[in-house]
């Protein structure tokens, strides 16, 4: 390969689309490193504190598309204080100053300010795609800047962000000359929207294929929009409420019949179930259905709807569907690959909650299932063993029993054997979340069998340090480990310190790790940032080393301790 000119190498590398492949290629020799870095356009950074924007820009001058993740995963569940960090501003500033022609920016769990969005919108003439997932810190004013200044904007995709709604006028900031939109998702906005602006925007966006509306968009507007955009592939309805005997509703029924391209359906943030029949005709074509925010659709109506969806590959649903409803899914949706069942009542008993029976039914009817997120009342070892046998193709298996330390209700035993069966059978498993009563034994199984495991989430499990040791020693491909409320301490933490440089990050909260343990680790491993989150002033600077650490987050990094850490985060 050394006899080929660089252009040929580059052309060959063009066929490598995955980041991992390109990363691997860059390690072969210095020639390949050089060719690869100049030709790389897409970069994925799983931890924004592992590298600096300056180093990124230096290495990849041809960068066009950047993905950044900020806060640790457990920040989603309120375990990380506000102000912890994950600011995108320094990245945008550095990129703006450079000659990088950024076109795409995808952020997850980062703090984004209106100033950042303004700067972003003004700095890159060819900016096309902005995707924000689970971010916070900005308002609709920032969105207005994006709308107004990004002349060739194609995608604006806002998923589950906390956005301060100042007014609906941001939609009107798209200039009349903006006709390039292919994807617009503002479902997470809570406020009002200028409906006329929305209709005009859709009317002048002939390439629009994905549109997800927020709660403020009524059914009348939906009908008008669908008239203008019959080629939509992905639709998220806003408010889906009307009188089923009205003319508007009848118009909607007719309009929907023309929308033969819709494959993804979501929304129904407000819904009148009697209006659901209008969408039955397009259900047969659906490959993806997300009703996880449709609290207004109850069990029997859900079931009626699902019976029409024979081609579903992805289904996100609330547990009010019940075990019976899951049986219907199992018999109807034989192509199902991904299932997520969310709790409709996260704090209560959940009378409609699903149990192991629903999951077993699914495993029988949906052999192609590879991704599961399942919130349930209870689970048994027998069920898990059955599921493992029926569905050996799991890549992601996340089980959340609402009472996190509940044993098998039939045998009253821990769920070690059940999860053991899962890891033994599913040889391609990359992501696993455990719950229920679990001893060290489950970790022994995981260490022994989960050879492809990359991410493990553990809560209220295990008996001793051995549990954590089994995982650290056994799972060679482990990248992210997050643990809360387990009896793992310094011995486990310090047993294989080199392991953490092969991983992206480790989170441990409410475990037995002490300040001494964390300090020791930090001293021995300079290329790890070992951060303690200290919220309640329990620890002074001269705290005793023997004191237990409430929250520890460590990650490998090439740029040392971060300079934007707030007071309550100590880098050891």
């Amino acid at each position, binding site marked *: 390969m050394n006899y080929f000119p660089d252009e040929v190498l580059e052309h060959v590398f063009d066929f490598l689309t995955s980041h991992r492949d390109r990363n691997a290629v860059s390690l072969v020799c210095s020639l390949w490193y050089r060719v690869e870095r100049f030709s790389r356009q897409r970069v994925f950074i799983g931890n924004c504190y592992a590298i600096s924007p300056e180093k990124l820009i230096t290495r990849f001058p041809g960068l066009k598309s950047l993905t950044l993740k900020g806060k640790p995963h457990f920040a989603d*569940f*309120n375990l990380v204080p506000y102000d912890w960090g994950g600011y995108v501003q320094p990245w945008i500033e550095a990129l703006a100053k450079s000659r990088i022609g950024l076109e795409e920016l995808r952020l997850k769990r980062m703090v984004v300010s209106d100033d950042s969005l303004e700067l972003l919108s003004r700095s890159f003439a060819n900016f096309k795609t902005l995707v924000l997932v689970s971010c916070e810190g900005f308002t609709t004013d920032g969105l207005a800047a994006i709308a107004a200044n990004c002349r060739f904007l194609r995608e604006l995709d806002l998923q589950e962000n906390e956005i301060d709604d100042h007014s609906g006028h941001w939609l009107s900031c798209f200039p009349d000359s903006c006709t390039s939109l292919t994807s617009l998702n503002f479902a997470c906005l809570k406020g009002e929207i200028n409906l006329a602006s929305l209709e005009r925007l859709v009317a002048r966006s002939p390439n629009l294929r994905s549109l997800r509306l927020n709660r403020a968009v009524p059914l009348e507007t939906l009908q008008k929009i669908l008239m203008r955009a019959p080629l939509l592939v992905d639709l998220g309805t806003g408010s889906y409420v009307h009188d089923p005997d009205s003319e508007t509703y009848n118009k909607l029924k007719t309009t929907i019949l023309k929308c033969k391209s819709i494959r993804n359906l979501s929304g129904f943030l407000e819904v009148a179930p009697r209006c659901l029949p209008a969408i039955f005709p397009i259900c047969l074509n659906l490959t993806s259905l997300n009703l996880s925010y449709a609290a207004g659709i109850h069990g029997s109506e859900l079931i009626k709807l699902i019976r029409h969806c024979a081609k579903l590959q992805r289904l996100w649903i609330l547990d009010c569907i019940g075990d019976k409803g899951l049986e219907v899914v199992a018999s109807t949706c034989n192509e199902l690959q991904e299932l997520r069942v969310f709790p409709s*009542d996260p*704090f209560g008993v959940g009378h409609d909650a699903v149990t192991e029976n629903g999951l077993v039914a699914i495993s029988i009817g949906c052999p192609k299932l590879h991704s599961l997120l399942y919130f349930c009342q209870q689970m048994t070892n027998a069920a898990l063993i059955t599921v493992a046998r029926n569905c050996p193709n799991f890549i992601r298996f996340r089980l*959340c029993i609402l*009472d996190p*330390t509940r044993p098998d209700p039939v045998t009253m035993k821990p769920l070690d054997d059940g999860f053991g069966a899962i890891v033994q059978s599913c040889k391609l498993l990359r992501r696993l979340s455990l719950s229920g009563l679990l001893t060290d034994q489950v970790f022994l199984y995981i260490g022994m069998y989960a050879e492809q495991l990359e991410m493990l989430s553990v809560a209220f499990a*295990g008996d001793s340090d051995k549990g954590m040791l089994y995982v650290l020693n056994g799972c060679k491909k482990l990248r992210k480990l997050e643990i809360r*409320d387990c009896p793992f301490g310094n011995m486990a933490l310090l047993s294989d310190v080199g392991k953490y440089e092969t991983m992206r990050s480790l989170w441990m909260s409410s475990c037995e790790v002490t300040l001494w343990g964390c300090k020791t680790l930090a001293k021995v491993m300079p290329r790890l940032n070992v951060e303690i989150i200290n919220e309640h002033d329990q620890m002074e600077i001269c705290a005793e080393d023997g004191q237990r650490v409430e929250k520890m987050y460590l990650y490998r990094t090439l740029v040392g301790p971060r300079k934007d850490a707030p007071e309550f985060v100590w880098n050891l």
Partner: protein
Amino acid sequence: MSPENGKHLPESDATGLNLKETELTLRLPGEIRGDIEIKAKSGTKRGFSQIIDLNHDRSSDVDHEHDDRGCDKLENETLAIKPPAAKAQVVGWPPVRGFRKNAMKSFKFVKVAVDGAPFLRKLDLELYSSYQELLCAFDNMFSCLTICNYLNEKKLMDTANGVEYVPTYEDKDGDWMLVGDVPWKMFVESCKRLRLMKSSEAIGLGNLLFRAWGYIPCLIYMSFTI
């Protein structure tokens, strides 16, 4: 037989929700509420059972300072019968994204007027799971009102001047109704606003078949006296 406070309500116990757990309170951190059902986990040092946290879920414009004045007794009385479904709430469990949790919450803020008070208040009815808890909320929100036991009835009174207040509400049809007749959930759905009416204004209602504080097919005779 006098209708009990909320504890026999089949309907209010149906969900077993102890929504009081989600109320904003001014308790000190770590203070354990007496009415939390704790499930012990064997084996681990710091089990799930020992982790209690107050859920400062959302702010509201309602003063939620709950000292236990009027409510303790009631809570303790309801405790015995409440099914063990009221779970202690642990931070971050179940692991549902904050955005999703907030989106699934329903709010039902209604105005509350008290005869003679200079301004109105607002209450989120979704915070409560029974008429009992609503009564408690009135007690706490309006400092002049206290829940008093009178002939086995719980009544709202201004102890300073002995005036009794009768809770009424405006329903979807615009009619003013006596609170307590229909199942709790039905009430929450149909209630548009609340008015605590001086019972003296109810003169002329005469012999009233009064179902107090519960959806119980049981009759109590109440006469309003000046």
